[in-house]
Every structure is written in C-alpha cells, then in structure tokens.
C-alpha cells in the first residue's frame, strides 16, 4: 500500500466535474480498467486501485502518476474472495477518504465448454462475475448511501441481455449483475447516489483474446472514453458501448424464443 502524491504539480487544463475527483477502481489491472484509469489520470483525478498483484499495481501506479493523476493509492486484494471485502472498504474509507465514484471492472470469462463440463468452473464464473461483485457493491453502496452522494458504476456485458448457446454461463452472471444494479439504482436514487450499468460489446482485451475474430472487437480506448464520459455526466443509467450495441441488442432481445433457440451464435 503505497501512496504517490502529485498534488503540488500543475494539471492539464481538462475540467473535472465535482462528482468525479476520487475514483475507486475494483479490478484495476483489467484491460478496460487500465484505459479508463489513463483517461481519468489525464483529467487529474485521484485513484484508488484495487487488484490482486501488488507488482502490477506498482507498475500502474507509476504510470498513472506520471500521466497526471493527482494521487494514486493501491491496495492488493483478491476481489473474488468475499472475506477480504470488509478490509477493502475499510482501507478506502481511511486511506482514500471522501471518494466519490466506485467502478467495478473485474470479471472472468472461461471457455463456455469448460463451464458446461465442470461444475467447479461454472461456480467460479458465477462467484467472480456475480456473487463477489454484488457483495462488494453492497458494502460500498451502504457507505455512499450514508454520505448521500457519489456514483457506482459496474461493467457487465451485452452478453447478459440474452442467454446464448455460446456463452450463457458468463452471460447469465453478467445479466444477473445487471438486474442487481437495476435494483440498486432504485434503492440509492433517494439518497442521490447514481448507479451506472455499463454494457460493452466484445472488446479487445486479454479476457477475449481466445475468442474467434477477436481482432475485430472494439478498441478498449474507445470503450474507456465512453465510460469516462458517462461518469462525468448525469446520464445514461445504462451505457451500451460502442453505441451500436444499444440497437443491436434491442433487436436481439426481441427475437422470439422459438426462433432464438435454434440460433447457434
């Protein structure tokens, strides 16, 4: 747990809205998170990075501080282990006080076939993408609700909009997380805490390298740009990125089940 303080150096002139000065990133070493962090650093935000590998966190910390982050704090923890969550919140409250935004950016995508043949893989997929995610978001939601402000954003997936043959295990975990966020949004609305559901289409990151056609997936830098803009503004509640997925998925959601079950994608 080391702290780099840049507060005396001058910032690039990009404007920072009051609601996005101190951002907690859960899963800071994930592909999309790294690009989001760079853009937040450029805007002069303060960052608390949470991820497993302390060595990788140290590399990110150096990088983001040089790129303009006002302050970078790191905390090494295994986010899929719920026993460690209380300590993460504790650290955030004491070493990163007054944080205003929480971005959940971790996830795992096993090969669908493995999750069909191994119950261990199936349960791990649900544990990482859904169970642990709801647990840590509930902790942070309580804290922000008490303080009556802030923003919670979580990266789910367009795969959660409809169960498909090729990835329904990952999809169901992400879909369940989207439902959870929907309810959480309603619960936190009276407290003035915003909840954003981020639904990226397939993105070129380490998580998707093993998929066919991964070279045609979206550029993480563009997706990160959409996410940062959504954090800065007051809308939308549900972000599809790249934007075309909003329209694609509204079609996909409306295909009759009797037809959909025959589709092999």
């Amino acid at each position: 747990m080391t702290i780099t303080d840049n507060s005396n150096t001058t910032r690039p002139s990009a404007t920072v809205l009051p609601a996005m000065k101190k951002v907690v990133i859960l899963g800071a070493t994930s592909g999309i998170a790294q690009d989001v962090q760079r853009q937040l650093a450029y805007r002069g935000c303060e960052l608390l990075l949470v991820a497993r590998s302390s060595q990788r966190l140290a590399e990110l910390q150096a990088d983001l501080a040089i790129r303009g982050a006002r302050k970078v704090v790191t905390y090494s923890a295994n986010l899929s282990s719920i026993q460690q969550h209380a300590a993460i919140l504790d650290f955030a409250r004491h070493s990163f006080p007054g944080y205003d935004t929480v971005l959940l950016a971790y996830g795992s995508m096993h090969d669908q076939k493995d999750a069909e043949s191994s119950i261990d893989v199936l349960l791990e997929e649900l544990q990482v993408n859904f169970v642990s995610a709801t647990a840590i978001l509930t902790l942070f939601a309580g804290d922000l609700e008490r303080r009556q402000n802030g923003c919670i954003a979580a990266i789910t997936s367009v795969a959660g909009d409809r169960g498909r043959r090729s990835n329904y295990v990952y999809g169901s975990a992400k879909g369940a997380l989207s439902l959870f966020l929907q309810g959480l949004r309603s619960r936190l609305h009276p407290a003035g805490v915003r909840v954003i559901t981020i639904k990226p289409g397939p993105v070129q990151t380490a998580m998707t390298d093993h998929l066919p056609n991964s070279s045609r997936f979206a550029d993480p830098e563009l997706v990160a740009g959409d996410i940062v803009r959504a954090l800065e503004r007051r809308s939308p509640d549900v972000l599809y990125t790249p934007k075309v997925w909003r329209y694609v998925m509204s079609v996909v959601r409306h295909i009759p089940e009797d037809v959909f079950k025959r589709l092999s994608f």
Partner: protein
Amino acid sequence: MSGQSAAALRKQPAAPPLVKRVFSWGRYPKTAHQHVHKPAWNDQVPEILQSAAPGSLLPYGLGRSYGDSCLNGGRELIDCHRLNRILGFDESTGMLRCEGGVSLADIINVFLPKGWFLPVTPGTRFVTVGGAIANDVHGKNHHCAGTFGAHVRQIGLHRSNDGLVVCSTQENPDMLRATVGGLGLTGVIAWADIQLKRVAGPWIDVEVIPFHSLNSFLDLSRESDGRFEYTVAWLDCFAGKNLRGIFFRGNHAVEAGGKVQPKRGPKLPFALPGWMLNRYSVKAFNAAYYRIHAARKGAAVVPYDSFFYPLDSVRQWNLLYGRQGFLQYQCVIPETKLDAFGELLDRIAISGMGSFLGVLKQFGSAPSAGMLSFPRPGLTIALDFAMRGERTLKLMQSLDDIVQQSGGALYPAKDARMSPAMFEASFPHWRSFVPYIDPKMSSSFWRRVTGGA
C-alpha cells in the same frame, strides 16, 4: 481425391489455424502466422519464451516496418502493444523509463506539455519504443543527434535462456549493441531508459527551399547542418533529368507558443483499386506537391505534427496502394559516389514506376549505436513502389546492383525482397551479430537473407 483418403485426412488432428490478419505496413508479403501472443504484463513474457520452440517467436510492435522484418511467417509473434506503461521519469534530467510497447505518440502526448520531446523521431509517431530500438531508427536530425539508439541508456531485455538481462554501456555492452538495430532477434524489450530532450514548446521554425539539382541539394544540406537541427528533402522522382525537390529545414521554436492539439485526420477505409495509382496520377500529384511547396518557400512557424509527421494525418495511408500493397526502397550511397545516385534516379524515372514522396536526407558522420544499424555517412533516399508483381521486383533488383557497386546499403526495416548477397554487402559483419540472437527468436526477414543463421 478419393472418398477414402478424404476420410483419412479428416481423422488426422487438425493443424492449428493460421492467424491471417497480421501485416507489415507495406501489406506485402501476405504471411499467415500460427499464433499471436498478446502479453498484457511483462511478468507474462518469460513463460511465453520458455514454452516456445526454438526459432518460433518474434516481438511485434505496431507493424510499421514496411517489409517482413516484423513478420514471422508460419510461426508465432509476440504482440507487445499492451506493454505500454511509463515506469518512471526524472523531471530534472528528462530520463524516461518505459515499457517496450509504449508508442512514440504516447510519449509526445505525455511529455511535450511538460517541455520534453523525443531525442530522435522517425517519420511516423505510431511506432513503439521497442520497434524504434530494434530498427535503430533515424530522423531529420540524424546529422546532429545520430540514431534513436544513441539516446537509449539502458535496456531490460527478456531472454529465453537467461531471464531479464539489463544492458547498458557498463553492463552487457555487447548485448546493448546487438539489441539496438537487432530487429527484435535478441529478445523482448521489457523496458528502456531514454534520454528525452528539453524543448520550449510544440512549434517548429521551418524554412522551405526549392532546389533543382543534386549538387544544390548537397550545398543546401551542408550549409544547413550547422544551423538547423532538422533537415530533409522531398524529391520528385518523375522529373528525370530536370530534377526538382523541396528542401525543409527547421529548429524547435524558442518561444513556447500556444498548445497544439494533433488533428485526428481522415482515415482510408479500404484498399483503393490498384489502377488509381498510375504514372499519370502520381506525376500530377508530384507536380502539385512541388508547386504548392515552392509557392510557400520561405520561413514559417508550424506545429510539430505537421513538420515531423505529415503522413500520420491520413490514417492507414498504406491502403492507397491497393490490395497488393507496396514496397519501400531505402538505400544509402556514399557521397563520393554521386554518379551512382544520379544513375539510380534515372533508372527510376525511366521505369515510370516511382511514386510520390521520395525522401532524401544526408546522414551525419556519427557512428550508429547498433551492430546492424543502417545509418552511415552518405546520402539516403526512400521511395515507395506499388507492388505490381515481377516488374516491380526486377526494377528493385536493378537498383540493388547500383547500390551494391557504389558500396551502399539497404535498410532492413523497409525491405521485403533483398537477396542474401545484397544483405551481405550492406552488413558485412552480420555474422558477429549471430551469437546474440535469442535461440527462440527468428523472423521472415532473417531467414530470407541469411538462410536462418
């Protein structure tokens, strides 16, 4: 094929599919690869190296080498673009430590607002630090700053047999000299220390001067060397005997000036039909280019991106050359052999196959930092040729003869077709580089010019 043998074939384990979509900048040759590793962290690289077969790997950056020096046909690549973190920066000295996949564009975006610039930059900022080192690239300031490698103080190099090797002029100096200009064959560059240079701001004081002969180019170049940090010329290779060109020279402006927001220009969406680039359209382009710049002769203050990276403003400009791609020809010829240079230009003019943007530069005398570095004293010219099959290759072969007889050399980063004999003539000491090659590394280029030594 009979039904039986087809069935027998089906039973054999399927060969792993070849990953097709990896091109170099020239989009020639079109080679398929077995697998592309994409490490996101330096700590993942050792395992990739350990588990690979001998001679199966090659690091790949942003694919801006023109030919096959960044390809490893039928084998594997390590795509390093995710190793793009800045690990340290000393605000007082300008010493930067960054991972090998950081792009020069990224370095400029982060450090130019702080008053620091690249010590040497090639004609595009979309290359990685690892690629700039592995090709020991040069720029318009070669006559005063030497090559990129001259500003690399230290390198952390992943080697398959001895882990992370730190190379500097004190520690493993030979491995440093091998890695600079080593075409990626010595290992994967984990990080490098690069000395940035102080500048007042993002503006360049530039002078534009038309010229009409090789001798007047040389006079301009010599006269400018002491007073201008950057010199380069554009040459109309269609003009034949009536040679003409535009000489550009510049210095960093001493005033900070306003900020520069690099323009995100248009992008070529797909490969143009090959017939669109022909001797008439290119001739017309060259004439227009000459007239526009000749009309603008004199001094001006321009943003750094339009001075250093005019081509970067059209994304994917390489698609201009159509589906077959193109070849670039960059050679250096000793200044004492000006006749050979004239002969070279004549032959290109006669062929009618030359293209726009012939770039001419007089190299300085500073020795290059790497064993296989290309820059050496003399006159260098770079030209694009649309790939038109055998006749393009024949023309380039005949240019090789002129270069070889003059004691000149070809640039591996631009090459997709030189013969082993031409490579030998360009780099007579290449065998002393061989012991530094990582046993897990190889490349299409290296196998082609050395037979896989």
